[in-house]
Each structure stands twice: as structure tokens, then as C-alpha cells.
């Protein structure tokens, strides 16, 4: 099964929802609107001719220069012929809500918590959306590109140890 078949299937089913398709190093990248992201992943998993039954990974990304700054990237895998596909969706910084895929892939649970932890992306319908790696009292999302490399507001550093 080649990538044009997958692209054709997705474009027929979702038309306007598919925003951008690109193929890099034989791996298909599809950018979809957030309104259809859950249906796209369900379609890729449950459609008999597609059958992407494994969620390899899920992560967040922040492009501060874009209008829709925050993104969620899903990597799906079909075992039968080792095909992989990358699905992206972008969200505005002011309203970073995306439907959860924990109902389709249980393994998405901790990945979505990690993405929430570092980027503040809210997964609507997630059973337990709280911080997973960082301390509970952290009041910001550290992987967002909102901070200078050296944060001048931090008070926990001892200048003596850094030659300052």
C-alpha cells in the first residue's frame, strides 16, 4: 500500500479537514484541523483498508512564529507492512484544547499527560490530566518557547557556582 492510497482515502473522507500533505523520507505527514483530529485517527485505526493499529508516540511542539502556535504530533504504525504515518494538528495558544485519543489507544494516557505537563495542551476527555514528570507545584509549562535561555526571574540559583 503506497502513500497516495492513504492520502486519497483521507482526502475523500475528510475533504476540508485535511490541510496539508507532505512526504519526507518515505514517511507521510498529514496536517489536519483540530475539529477532525479524533475522527482522522479513528478512521486510520478502524478502517479495514488502513489499519494503523499502533500509536508509536504522541508529543507536543511549539512554533512561536505561527498563528496557531501549539501543535500535537501523532505517529501511527501499521505492523502488517511496517508503514508509518505522522499526523499533526495545530492549536491557538489561547485555547489549546484537543480531544483525547485515550479511548482509541490506552497507551496515549501518559503521553498526553506528558504533553500537558510540558506544553499545557489540554486533552478534552482525558481520564486523569495532571502533571506526570514535573513537580506538582510548577506553575508554568517549561517546554514552551516563552522563556529566555537563562531565566532571570529564577531565585533558586546560586551565582557563586556559575562564576557570576
Amino acid at each position, binding site marked *: 500500500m503506497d502513500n497516495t492510497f492513504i492520502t486519497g482515502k483521507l482526502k475523500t473522507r475528510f475533504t476540508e479537514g485535511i490541510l496539508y500533505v507532505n512526504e519526507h523520507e518515505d514517511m507521510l505527514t498529514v496536517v489536519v484541523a483540530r475539529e477532525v483530529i479524533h475522527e482522522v485517527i479513528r478512521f486510520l485505526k478502524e478502517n479495514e483498508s488502513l489499519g494503523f493499529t499502533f500509536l508509536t508516540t504522541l508529543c507536543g511542539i511549539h512554533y512561536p512564529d505561527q498563528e496557531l502556535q501549539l501543535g500535537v504530533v501523532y505517529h501511527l504504525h501499521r505492523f502488517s507492512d511496517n508503514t508509518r504515518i505522522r499526523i499533526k494538528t495545530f492549536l491557538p495558544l489561547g485555547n489549546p484544547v484537543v480531544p483525547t485519543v485515550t479511548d482509541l489507544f490506552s497507551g496515549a494516557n501518559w503521553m498526553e499527560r506528558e504533553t500537558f505537563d510540558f506544553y499545557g495542551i489540554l486533552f478534552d476527555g482525558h481520564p486523569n490530566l495532571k502533571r506526570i*514528570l*514535573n*513537580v506538582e507545584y510548577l506553575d508554568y509549562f517549561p517546554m514552551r518557547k516563552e522563556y529566555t535561555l*537563562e531565566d532571570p526571574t*529564577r531565585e533558586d*540559583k*546560586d551565582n557563586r*557556582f*556559575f562564576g557570576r
Partner: protein
Amino acid sequence: MSTSNYIKVDPPEGYSSPGLFATTFDKVVGLARKNSIWPLPFATSCCGIEFMATMGAHYDLGRFGAERLSFSPRQADLLMVMGTIAKKMAPVVQQIYVQMAEPRWVIAVGACAASGGIFDTYSVLQGIDRIVPVDVYVPGCPPRPEQIIDGFMKVQELVGKESLRRRYSKEYKDLLESYGIR
């Protein structure tokens, strides 16, 4: 008389004559304590690997009476923190310190335990002295076993010279209070 080559320690300062040796109680207790320290290794990263070499036959921390590691804080005398401590792990380190019985000592092995080291970042504790009082700092990234042994011998010096009343002093209580430890 057998010619075994066990290590004897020097007697403390005191007055001796045939059949008599007089010294202070502090010094006798200090001598006993400093040559039988039970360390609790809290090894989180590469400094812990150096500590394994330190405990091994080649460097042999047993020569200093410290071959008996205590993996329970209740019986430990010396907390050896070796490696990066993330902020999320800070309360764990502090709880282990609280669970240790007095008298207790702490050694921060390596740049990370002493100051956060290269991990100048939001998730790493910038030195364990922010959560527990530290007696000896061992520099290095990671330190060689010789340096760890040097740091350990500095702890022995402190243990040997400690006054029996120190832990009841107001200064010591204030120190613990400043860390929020009771």
C-alpha cells in the same frame, strides 16, 4: 603473638602511665564513631558509579571502617548523596535525612549534589544544601574515588572531633529549624 596486619588507630590525646589511660569521654566516643561509620548511599547517577568503585576491593572504603553500608536510613550515620537530585526528588532526600537517627552527617558527592552542576535548569535542585544541612562537599564531575575517600576522611575528622553536646545546642536546633526539619 600473631602478626596479623589489621589497622590500629592512634589513641586520642590523654594522660597515660602504666596500667592507666585518662582522656575525655568525647574523644573516646568520637574515636569509636569515626572508625565505624555506616554510610547510606543515595546514588542517582554517574557519581554513584564512582562510589561503587570506591566500595570495591581496589579502593576499599572498608579500610576506614565503612564497609557496612546501611540501606535503611534508621541505622545509617552518614548520608552520601551522589548524583543529580531533581526537584521532584528533593522531598524524598529530605525525608530520608529526617528518618536518620542523630548523630547524622551528610556528604554531597559531585557537582550536581553540591550545586546542580551542569543542570542549570528548572527541574533540578541547585544543590542539596537547599533541603538538608551538608557537612562535606566533594567537587568533581564525577569525582575520582580518591576524592570521595578524601571527602569521607574529612567527615571522619568532623565525627572524631564532635562534642557530645553539639546536637543539643541552640545553634544546631536553629540550623535544622531553618531547613524546616524537626
